[in-house]
């Protein structure tokens, strides 16, 4: 008999029992009913005494269960509204179960498996693993493609996780942000409404609560920790990840730089392949960009293969980078005679 077992119940057994109990009830269970009857709680329940520790346990368990996407509801007793002891808890079957008409073909399962694999590194890996578990629960098996694909998106920025928490809670965050060209980071207080990756970089589109203006912040330029505040700021309906991406794409299209490239160089091949790049004459390309500093970094990495023609501001950014690079690496005084060319010739 289960009741006769040792009182030490594993956490997953308590959580599983809680889900089963709350799924099985239509009217819901009060907190004291949960604590006194459900496996894992009842062993520690004292009918006469203080159950404060057990109540805190129940609060944490509810959070953990909701984290998995289980719709754990509270039902207020209309006759005694606001009385915490009479709140009832339940998991409505209709919002818990995957609708019966949702199924996935083997091709779809394969595609979703690949989509989940994209996150195998970083903070979304736990969630995509659980999503795969649910797909497998449905019975789907994926066909293995002949060519292996191993796509990967990274979410390494330290700011990613706190921002996602703020996003889920719909609250304002505070962080220090270093704009390129500014000497010091500036404190920002904004309500994030999405997290998007554009051209390989994570950004947080956010609203300034006081002015209502919308701005995109690069996660890599956030300096120090992100503070998640308790100030709630509901997301306006039109503030979506897709609208933010569309805005960034629009910005990218409207910014054009003219660059000269060395013929048949790596720079020519790669810049020509960027979306929207047009040829303007024998060795001149028009490339689009959304952020001048990022483009300056990219163009600098091509070194002598690229010369920026316009805009002048971008040209200056690249020249500055290159000159600083020379200055940072110039130790002529210490140069031993004639030993450096070999490294270049070796292949």
């Amino acid at each position, binding site marked *: 008999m289960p*009741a006769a077992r040792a009182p030490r119940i*594993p956490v*997953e*057994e308590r*959580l*599983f029992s809680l889900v*089963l*109990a709350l*799924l*099985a009830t239509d009217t819901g269970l009060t907190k004291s009913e949960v604590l006194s009857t459900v*496996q894992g709680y*009842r062993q520690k329940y004292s009918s006469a005494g203080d159950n404060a520790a057990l109540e805190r346990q129940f609060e944490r368990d509810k959070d953990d269960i909701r*984290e*998995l*996407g*289980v719709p754990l509801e509270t039902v207020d007793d209309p006759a005694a509204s606001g009385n915490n002891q009479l709140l009832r808890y339940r998991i409505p079957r209709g*919002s818990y*179960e*995957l*609708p019966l008409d949702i199924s996935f073909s083997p091709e779809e399962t394969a*595609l*979703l498996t690949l989509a989940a694999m*994209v*996150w195998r590194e970083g903070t979304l890996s*736990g*969630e*995509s693993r659980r999503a795969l*578990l649910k797909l*497998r*629960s449905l019975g789907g098996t994926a066909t293995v493609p002949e*060519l*292996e*694909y*191993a796509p*990967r*998106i*990274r979410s390494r920025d330290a700011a990613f996780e706190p921002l*996602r928490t703020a996003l*889920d809670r719909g609250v304002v965050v505070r962080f220090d942000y270093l704009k390129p060209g500014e000497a010091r980071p500036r404190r920002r207080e904004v309500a994030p*409404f999405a*997290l*998007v*990756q*554009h051209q*390989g970089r994570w950004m947080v589109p956010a609203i300034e609560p006081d002015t209502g203006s919308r701005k995109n912040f690069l996660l*890599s330029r956030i300096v120090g920790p992100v503070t998640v505040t308790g100030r709630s700021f509901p997301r306006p309906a039109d503030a979506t990840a897709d609208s933010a991406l569309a805005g960034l*794409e629009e910005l990218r299209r409207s910014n054009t730089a003219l660059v000269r490239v060395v013929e048949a*160089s*790596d720079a020519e091949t790669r810049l020509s392949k960027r979306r929207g790049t047009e040829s303007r004459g024998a060795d001149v390309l028009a490339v689009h960009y959304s952020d001048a500093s990022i483009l300056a*970094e990219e163009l600098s990495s091509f070194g*002598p293969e690229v010369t920026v023609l316009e805009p002048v501001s971008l040209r200056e950014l690249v*020249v500055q980078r290159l*000159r600083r*690079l*020379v200055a940072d*690496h110039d*130790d002529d005084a210490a140069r031993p005679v004639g030993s450096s060319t070999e*490294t*270049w010739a*070796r292949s």
Partner: protein
Amino acid sequence: MSDRRPALQATDKLAFLLALVPWLIDHERVSVAEAAEHFAVGTAEIRRAVELIAVSGIPGETSQYQHGDLFDIAWDDFEQNDVIVLTNLVAIDESPRFSSREAAALIAGLQYLSSLPDHADRAAVASLTAKLSRGASSEPSQVAVAESESDEALAVVGRAVEAGVQLEFDYAGVRGRAERRRVDPLRVESLDADWYLRAWDHVREGLRTFRVDRMSRPALTDAPITHRASDLSLPDTLFEGSPDDVVVTIEIDDAAAALLDDWSPTDVERADEGRTRLSLRVSHHGTVARLVAGLPGRACVVAPPEARRAVAEWARRAAAEYDAEGTAAG
């Protein structure tokens, strides 16, 4: 996906139980081994889960977890034949919905994949996105990844694989001179917006990683491939070392140090004032010049002196292009 994982948290175990029960219901009679294979876990994990399910249930009318309030299994089949048969069911019938974060992760992953040639046409992605949104217990979180640039070369790689033939393309290495390469394509990988082809290089006679956006004039050949991914062990890291590598030491802003993780840096240590110092292996000094020039913050090679000189020389040549044109004084 890999089976090697860190120890599961209680919530992961709960998620597993909630996924396993409906599958067992659908499969009436299934061996432990089959279940383990389907869920890509060990047989011990399946057995532990089944043992737990078999003694779990609801408090029931008596609040005493009476026999009929619990799941039950055919114990003899389980203990003697390693076969799972649920004989009494409680509370659960169907698979759970996706959480908003799970749905968001899959949807964002799908968007990202839509540029892959033989995957995900837009219609398939749209219909899957709709299904996932409908199958989530609350609205999917606002996380999105822009569709990565589609590259004609990727489509050609796909056709070469389908036909089982070698692939040819011009490849401008970092030294700037394009060469015709002939390869057996093995695996397509990506890191954020960058796509790579892992392949057997017939010219170099070895495994090589190619940036797809560096490939031009890709074409199929008549020669059948001689190497398959299943015959070779592809290292996990994209950028592998070779005996010719040189080790360089770089100093970089702390915030940007993570950008070098793919280079498997060693000797990572704190330098002064928010700076990190680390060592990594590069194929030659030209590579490191490009690397530090493209990093945000003030990345700098500190050793060896030959590498520093190579960077200075390279940057000086690049800057000279601007001097020659009489740019505004910087």
